[in-house]
Each structure stands twice: as structure tokens, then as C-alpha cells.
């Protein structure tokens, strides 16, 4: 079972560069989420989507963009990377707001230098 797949696993970016973190799920979940986790901290919601074509901001959306053209994919775009975006990024999906169905990807470690 693939579940939630994130790529890349690790990436180093220079300040001002842009990149996209990919996220795919094969569970036909309609809800998808992007979180970031800073050292010693919990997860903060960046963006989420309740279905294809629908996205909404979370707690910390500045500096990021998302799209949801299909049920399976929910890419996260970083424009003009900044050191403050150095973090671990987690994608997750669930069946509606049924949090007992939520699955997380393995994370993407991003360093901006």
C-alpha cells in the first residue's frame, strides 16, 4: 500500500529559488493537507483542500501556494525561498473530516541557505 507519497525526501534550496513539493495519495481521500514541523514544535497547517479544485489557507500560508487539480495530487509550491522556510513538510490526507482516517506521508526535509 502506497498511502501518501511525498517527493523529494530531502532538498537544499538557495535563497530566492522556487520549488514544488509533490504529494500523491491513492486512498481516494477527498481531504488533503500540508503541514510544516519546525524543530521541537508541533505541526502547523499551511494549506488544505476538501476536494479537487478547492483549496484554503491554514495557519501559516505566506510564501506558499497550492493547487488541487485531481483528487490524488496536492503539490505545494514555494516561491522565492527564504531561510524561515527551512523545515520538515508533511502531506496528509483523510476521508472528509474523519480524523480517524488520516494518514501522513514520510516528510520532506527542506533547507534554505
Amino acid at each position, binding site marked *: 500500500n502506497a498511502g501518501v507519497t511525498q517527493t523529494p525526501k530531502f532538498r537544499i534550496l538557495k535563497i530566492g529559488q522556487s520549488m514544488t513539493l509533490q504529494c500523491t495519495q491513492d486512498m481516494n481521500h477527498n481531504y488533503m493537507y500540508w503541514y510544516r514541523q519546525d524543530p521541537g514544535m*508541533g505541526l502547523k497547517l499551511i494549506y488544505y483542500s476538501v476536494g479537487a479544485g478547492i483549496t484554503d489557507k491554514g495557519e501559516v500560508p505566506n510564501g506558499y501556494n497550492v493547487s488541487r487539480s485531481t483528487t490524488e495530487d496536492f503539490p505545494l509550491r514555494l516561491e522565492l525561498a527564504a531561510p524561515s522556510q527551512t523545515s520538515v513538510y508533511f502531506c496528509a490526507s483523510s476521508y472528509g473530516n474523519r480524523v480517524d482516517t*488520516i494518514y501522513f506521508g514520510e*516528510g520532506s526535509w527542506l533547507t534554505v541557505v
Partner: protein
Amino acid sequence: TQLLEQSPQFLSIQEGENLTVYCNSSSVFSSLQWYRQEPGEGPVLLVTVVTGGEVKKLKRLTFQFGDARKDSSLHITAAQPGDTGLYLCAGLNRDDKIIFGKGTRLHILP
């Protein structure tokens, strides 16, 4: 803003001891979840509690949701080195967003 405060932040105990970690808020949540996260991996959902006063058991782990649905506790009996990890609580807020606490980092010494 609905916040979840977890305590203690760090806990290191000997194998075989019992422990309790806490998740507190001033706000009411429709449900609370507990996750365990191991280094290099994403959080894994352990349990969801929905009803005030609810108690759920998962082997040596006992989870309780406060009567007012503002707090929760996780009790581990006879801790084992395999219990080592970051324990996160999260709540489903009024906007249907999952809000996380900062976690309790637990280390069980063999």
C-alpha cells in the same frame, strides 16, 4: 485561536515505570487525537476520542478525554524502549481544521 498545550515537553524514564502526559486547552474540541512520531517519519494516529469522559485503551496505553472536552491525557503502563518517540495531541477545531500541540518527547531508558 484554539491552542493545545502539552506537558511535559520532555520526559525520560526507566523501562517498567508508568507515566502520564497531558494535553490541555481553554477551548472545546469536537474530538482529540493522539499521534506518535518516530524520527524521520510522519505522525501515526494512535487514537481518536470524541465523547467527554471517554476512555480508550490500546494495549499499555490509556487515553482519556476530559468531561468538558478541553483536555486529554495519555497514560503508559510499564513503559518499554519501543514507546520512545514524540507524542502529539491534535484537536479538530470549529473550522474542521486539525490543530496540533507541540508534543511530548518521551525517552524510555532500557
